[in-house]
């Protein structure tokens, strides 16, 4: 009796983020994501497909100048070699470079070129598949984070465009304040209205736990899991 031939699939491989939520899923840019739609005022979105690079090098020097920011701050590159990337000063001499999904090869090459041109020795490593990344958006986001993180999130301490690493629900997490433009509620009508938004980045193996802890802590604020309110 012969074994039945194994089914051969010719479909392109699908990557999975660190997070899985109950309900429908869809494939975007080769990544399997939740297809749930969040319409509430507080949303947790899985940004796992974003390209994530870590850069390690001298804290204060040419690499820092080339990346455009240092420890505790962020820089969004709108032009130049790193156009489209958000550079986060994650630690002294440590950076996290985030880019749109599917741009891994180009962003890695561009970042390596920028670092090489600086003349300093630094390493650039693609950790896209090794980390979890979520975006928490809504006016209640700081109140939620205050339940699981000891850092004072007041504007005076953590303004828009700043970053820190600390314990969030007992997980070592990079927290990046990256407020997004509020298109629905803009009283001045000039595009200056902002909604509180944080990126949270941790090791992949802790990602599902962190997301579940945030959903638990956010229940009283009506948190929903779904697509990000902004594309990036």
């Amino acid at each position, binding site marked *: 009796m012969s074994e039945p031939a194994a089914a051969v699939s010719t479909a392109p491989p699908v990557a999975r983020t660190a997070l899985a939520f109950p309900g429908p899923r869809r494939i975007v840019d080769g990544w399997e994501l939740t297809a749930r739609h969040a319409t509430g005022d507080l949303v947790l979105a899985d940004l796992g497909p974003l390209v994530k690079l870590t850069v390690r090098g001298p804290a204060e020097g040419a690499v820092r100048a080339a990346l455009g920011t240092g*420890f505790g701050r962020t820089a969004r590159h709108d032009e130049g070699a790193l156009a489209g990337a958000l550079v986060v000063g994650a*630690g*002294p001499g*440590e950076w996290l470079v985030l880019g749109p999904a599917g741009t891994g090869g180009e962003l890695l090459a561009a970042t390596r070129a920028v670092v090489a041109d600086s003349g300093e020795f630094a390493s650039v490593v693609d950790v896209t598949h090794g980390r979890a990344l979520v975006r928490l958006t809504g006016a209640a986001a700081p109140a939620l984070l205050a339940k699981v993180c*000891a850092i004072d999130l007041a504007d005076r301490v953590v303004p828009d465009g700043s970053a*820190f*690493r*600390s*314990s969030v629900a007992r997980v*070592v997490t990079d927290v990046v304040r990256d407020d997004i433009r509020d298109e629905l509620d803009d009283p001045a009508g000039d595009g200056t209205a902002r909604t509180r938004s944080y990126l949270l980045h941790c090791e992949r193996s802790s990602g599902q736990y962190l997301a579940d802890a945030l959903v638990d802590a956010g229940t009283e604020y009506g948190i929903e899991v779904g697509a990000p309110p902004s594309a990036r």
Partner: protein
Amino acid sequence: MMLLPCPNCGARNVSEFRYVGEAKTRPDPTTATPQEWRRHLYLHRNPAGWTRETWYHGSGCRRYFAIERNTVDNAVRTAGATS
């Protein structure tokens, strides 16, 4: 809760850190006698009062640094980075 002043991150909960030990100079491996190694590894001053010690900020900047801590009342004062 006890706060430790990290030279990179500011005051943080002590649970974010790992205690490394009393800050002291490592003997020269090429000339140290076994007695000197034993003293370095196992014997500590352990004073009732101010002591200089090394901590590691594992949940933050992932850097080692020195602080001075009073072992009687856990008061701390900064003593600069060690790496």
